[in-house]
């Protein structure tokens, strides 16, 4: 066993042994409180450039299989666990997690102090860190940590998103809706959930413009989750404004929710340590119902909670809030078809309480189809020309 250490930018040092690949890695260290789903977590593109620490003490028990990943590779910059499994035990297991991490060259550390780390991050906030099984001098590692880039201001979507557009066909036989999904770090389960409902999903690169999107003449537009700081995603914000101006039904998740917020003229901010887990209570403000939901976000939208507010696209409201900290978890346009949530209804990993949102998206597209069938001619593209009204935050 090789010794390894985790050094935080504020100088705190944790000791352990190497897990997965040996070497050195840097990123923003965050903790995830899920007790299941490490494989989905590791492959979630939103964790790009982040060192993920699992609070659950035993990781790797069920090994790794080829069915559960959320993307084609392990996305995390580094992995921190307490007690890695020595054997993989599950009827679907194909390899051990350790082997998988090594294969993908992911540097990790197994250390007793994961709870202490969580308490530290809880109180001081997510921060830069480095994991190394080659460096022995904490100070030296600390210097390199301080030299590494932070998350604030990081524009990462393009780094993880697909370069080429691709199509995920409907899984129901017939294609009820055609969805244009902008990939900002999309998880495999998301197009799957739509395909299950008869959607044909065209996944577009993060750089897709309003024109690219509307050129597909989709029944609905989707902006995915993804890594990085929403305040840098001006291009995507602009693209979305075009889509909204065209009156296309819109649905966004996570990063997509933040971009929607900005498109509506709202600001975003960085949470102290974010929400990462599968047990977060989110309340639907209309029904009062509580959904136990999967979260993975370090940023949030800053929106008025005290009722509807004006936006360039008509009135909007905060549709969902997090009961733990009152943070905005969902937005909804009241005069046009568009809504988004900060959490993960596709839920992989996580509970399925919120999958209804995909049905809502479908219902919305249904309604739009019916409407345009009623009065033909008002087709989208030219609407785009009008461009979107400027807002104070444009180009910020």
């Amino acid at each position, binding site marked *: 066993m090789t010794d390894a250490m985790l050094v935080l930018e504020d100088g705190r040092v944790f000791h352990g042994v190497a897990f997965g690949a040996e070497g050195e890695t840097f990123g923003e260290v965050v903790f995830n*409180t899920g007790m299941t*789903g490490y494989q989905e977590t590791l492959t979630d593109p939103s964790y790009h450039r982040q060192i993920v620490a699992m609070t659950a003490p035993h990781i790797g028990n*069920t090994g790794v299989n080829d069915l559960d990943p959320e993307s084609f590779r392990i996305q995390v910059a580094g992995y921190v666990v307490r007690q890695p*499994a020595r054997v993989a*035990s599950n009827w679907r297991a194909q390899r051990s997690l350790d082997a998988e991490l090594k294969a993908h060259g992911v540097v990790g550390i197994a250390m007793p102090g994961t709870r202490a780390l969580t308490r530290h991050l809880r109180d001081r906030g997510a921060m830069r860190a480095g994991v190394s099984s080659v460096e022995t001098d904490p100070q030296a590692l600390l210097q390199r940590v301080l030299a590494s880039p932070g998350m604030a201001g990081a524009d990462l979507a393009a780094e993880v998103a697909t370069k080429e557009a691709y199509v995920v066909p409907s899984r129901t036989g017939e294609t009820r809706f055609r969805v244009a999904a902008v990939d900002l770090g999309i998880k495999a389960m998301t197009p799957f959930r739509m395909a299950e409902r008869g959607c044909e999903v065209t996944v577009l690169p993060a750089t897709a413009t309003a024109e690219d999107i509307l050129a597909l003449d989709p029944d609905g537009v989707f902006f995915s989750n993804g890594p990085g700081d929403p305040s840098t995603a001006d291009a995507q914000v602009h693209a979305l404004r075009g889509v909204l101006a065209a009156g296309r039904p819109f649905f966004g998740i996570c990063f997509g929710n933040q971009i929607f917020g900005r498109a509506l003229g709202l600001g975003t901010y960085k949470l102290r340590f974010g929400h990462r*887990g599968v047990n977060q209570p989110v*309340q639907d403000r209309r029904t*009062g119902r509580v959904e136990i939901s999967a979260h993975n976000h370090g940023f949030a939208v800053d929106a008025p909670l005290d009722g509807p507010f004006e936006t360039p696209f008509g009135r909007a409201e905060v549709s969902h809030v997090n*009961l733990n900290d009152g943070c905005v978890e969902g937005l909804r346009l009241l005069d046009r078809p568009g809504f988004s949530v900060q959490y993960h209804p596709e839920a992989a990993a996580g509970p399925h309480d919120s999958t209804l949102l995909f049905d809502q998206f479908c219902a919305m597209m249904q309604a739009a189809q019916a409407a345009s069938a009623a009065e033909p001619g008002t087709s989208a593209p030219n609407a785009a020309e009008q461009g979107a009204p400027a807002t104070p935050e444009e180009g910020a």
Partner: protein
Amino acid sequence: MPRREDLKSVLIIGSGPIVIGQACEFDYSGTQACRVLKAEGLRVILVNSNPATIMTDPEFADATYVEPINAETVEKIIAKERPDALLPTLGGQTALNCAVALHEAGVLEKYNVELIGADFDAIQRGENREIFKGIVESLGAECARSVICHTMDEVLAGAAELGYPVVVRPSFTMGGLGSGFAYDEADLHRIAGAGLAASPTSEVLLEESITGWKEYELELMRDRNDNVVVICSIENLDPMGVHTGDSITVAPAMTLTDREYQHMRDVAIAVIRKVGVDTGGCNIQFAIHPSTGRMIVIEMNPRVSRSSALASKATGFPIAKIAARLAVGYTLDEIPNDITKVTPASFEPTLDYVVVKVPRFAFEKFPGADPTLTTHMKSVGEAMAIGRSFPEALQKALRSLEQKGASFSWSDVPPPLEELLESIATPHDGRLHEVQQALLAGATIGQVYQATGIDPWFLDQIVAINEVAADIRLSDDALTAAKLENAKRHGFSDVQIGQLRSLSEEVVRELRHALGVRPVYLTVDTCAAEFAAQTPYLYSSYDEESEVPIGTRPKVIILGSGPNRIGQGVEFDYSCVHASFTLSEAGYETVMVNCNPETVSTDYDTSDRLYFEPLTLEDVLEVVHAEQQTGVVAGVIVQLGGQTPLGLAQKLKDAGVPIVGTSPESIHLAEDRGAFGRVLAAGNLPAPKHGTATSAEEAVAIANEIGYPVLVRPSYVLGGRGMEIVYDDATLTGYMATATEVSADRPVLVDRFLDEAIEIDVDALYDGADLYLGGVMEHIEEAGIHSGDSACALPPITLGRENIERIRESTLKLAQGIGVRGLMNVQYALSAGVLYVLEANPRASRTVPFVSKATAVPLAKAAARVMMGATVAQLRAEGILPPTGDGGTLPLDAPIAVKEAVLPFNRFRNAEGQGVDTILGPEMRSTGEVMGIDEVFGTAYAKSQAAAYGSLPTKGRVFVSVANRDKRTMIFPVKRLADLGFEILATEGTAEVLRRNGVHAKIVRKHSEGTGPGGEPTVVRRVLDGEVDLIVNTPFGSPGQSGPRVDGYEIRTAAVVRGIPCVTTVQGLAAAVQGIEAVTRGDVGVRSLQEHASRLRNAWAE
């Protein structure tokens, strides 16, 4: 939605006596419910026949009825109290079944009482296995193939269809009562027969066997807004086939991917919605095929269950408390998570630690009982431990059991591998230990998995433990801090490490401390540290940083009693909890240490701080250290948790820990026979002639000197463990040969056995100057039947004033001689006018709660104060004790309370499937107790019987067959029964005596005589056919002889099978007759403890 305003008063039904499968977890849930509902301003009415519970303390409800839990009695309570609602989901199966009975009898409708928590239909849908199966399938989920049967013919047909082996399971029972595996038709007849009898709806389910599948449980909660959360997932280490209650269980589930877990969660939520448990908790069990993942729903309990208690302790989410709030209208998002305070209860706890629960069995108490673990729960208690890894939690849990050989050991060479593999193939107590030995002996994980079905991940963790042991053992290199830390992180105790290095525990401890290897204490916070926790609920781990808050007030550490076991149960938790409450009030910071998840003491808001830790010297010393680091420890209380903490007293003191109350030296004076003898001599108090022996020769010599019969037992035991009445040299020599742990400092005690003596139990309080006689209890059965198993009455029904005065003097002398500070329990035997001292226990006893309730005096509270230096006079002044008088001078019209023991015989069978014998002896075997309280003895006794075994008959057939020595005393009571209109059946000898005395008794054939020429059935047959309503049978002859004794055995076991009241002593018979007369007079009313108390107070005032 806020709380319902239309509800003003709620009736809560408790779970009655502690029985296997339904223990004090329901005291925990009921107590929580009472507390929150009272806090909500509702009038809380409680009925529970179990006096040992905390919930039945007058302060927890507005009206507390210690009355039998049956529809008849509860109707009386409803008629009197007119509650708006009935909450049936917190009192286990007992409460649920009682609620169903009340509904079906139209009582709820008549008094329009609303069932809250789960309505009648929901209960039906959840509990009726056939309906439930339909529901599960309608949701597209799977149940095991099964057929419902109501008759033996249907059963046989069903088995033919499913193919053997089949599982037989009755509806509406709990703890797997009446269920089991049938491998062939003979089994089927036996098990299904019992099953049909056990089920209140005489309905059994035959099911395909899925033994060996992985078993899981989910604990869920739902509110009236239809919000559902999963509180906890539990994985059974022992696969399907072993009752969850008997399985080693682990939280959270360890071997499921998120996909599989979420699927299980989806099904569980769909089920709870469809069944319609509208508010509150429920528990759903699943089986998963290890190699295909096929998932089967086993059952659901639409109520708070044993597992809910475990889940609450495992997660810190107070299920019962929340369930009670939901039942009165709140929704989950309106209730704060009182651990974080800042987040709502509508979330799912996430754990950053591992919880392991291990069962504790008591097969040694039921010789001949089949120790195989099956679908029918047999454990009497459990211990839980928390650690930051499975190995750490598992090893902590094993040592929490306080059972010889429970912890893994590497000292002795493992038996041959073949033997081990053979033996672990059948589940039994201690199997895990053999699994570890097998892996040590070189078995592969594959082999052990094949034999046991235990998931390879768990097996590998045990391999890891073995590897650490090997590493420690390498004696050539020194025990470094790193080595020790690694061992500790795998849960090794100093004792285990010592064994591996042949060092003493002390040496290892000193080395460890010298190297600075000490545990830290982490918080159970429901959120894996995402939010700061407010509730100091701690567990130890060899982890990074400690979370013990700095204390301000002087601290008192109370050591609990560990896992429930026969002889040490909820009664001791009662005393600990009371000490905690009252010392908090008195300004101390109270710190509880215990490892029993079923108890109120391990509820995180019972004490100012809770340490969920094993009660071993090492673990307690570390807790004391941690507390000393963060404040001033005024003292440690060892006197309330029974024998467990008492056993630690001296060692703790030697390690410099301040022990309050009776000093360890004084404890020794009472526990050591030699020293105790001197105390008796000094006070010239008579004791049965006795001696102590360390060899068979000595024993025989002593026996012949003092004369047979003698009573033999090991020293330092509780519950009369290993105690026997011996009549001759041969048996005595045999006993000495088998007696465990005989040594110079652990000799065998040989006492003259006092025949036909009245046994008296006394609980007293002594402050060094004044004695407060808490209560004097007269046993119904004569000395020779363990105090824990015999019924007793308080105030004593036949003792005169001068007897009581003598008892007072003797007790005072003992208290002085021993040097008691706090509680003391003495057992006397009154024989031929001489008051013998049987034993004195310088600690809270089993009877403290009973005495407290019978005399309306909070004895345990008073005791705790005395231990901390208060005087009896002071407590009288404060009103904790009555201003004048005590339990020895109760006013004449004080109510009479009768305690009756509840025995678990119906749960044990020998390998051939016959029941075990039910006769009582000096070794305690009861699991619980009930109390009947009323103005006169007869009624009180009748209530106690109704509460313990079902009502005494008022008409029908009595079968009488008594030993010769009892023939005279039996005549009068039996004659009375005849006068009351009972038909008397008797065996020949008994019948003759009765006839000569003008009682017309019909002769029936003994079992040994077999069916008569004219097909006349034997008594056993008639009992089995339900033709007998009451059985009076006192055992004949000493254990040596066979014939008559076997007859008795057959009769008594038949009685158990049919659940017919069976009296095994003539004293019991006399009491039963008084009871029957009372019932026949029909003047059995109900009265709350609060009413009894105020009457008593007035009586005292006069």
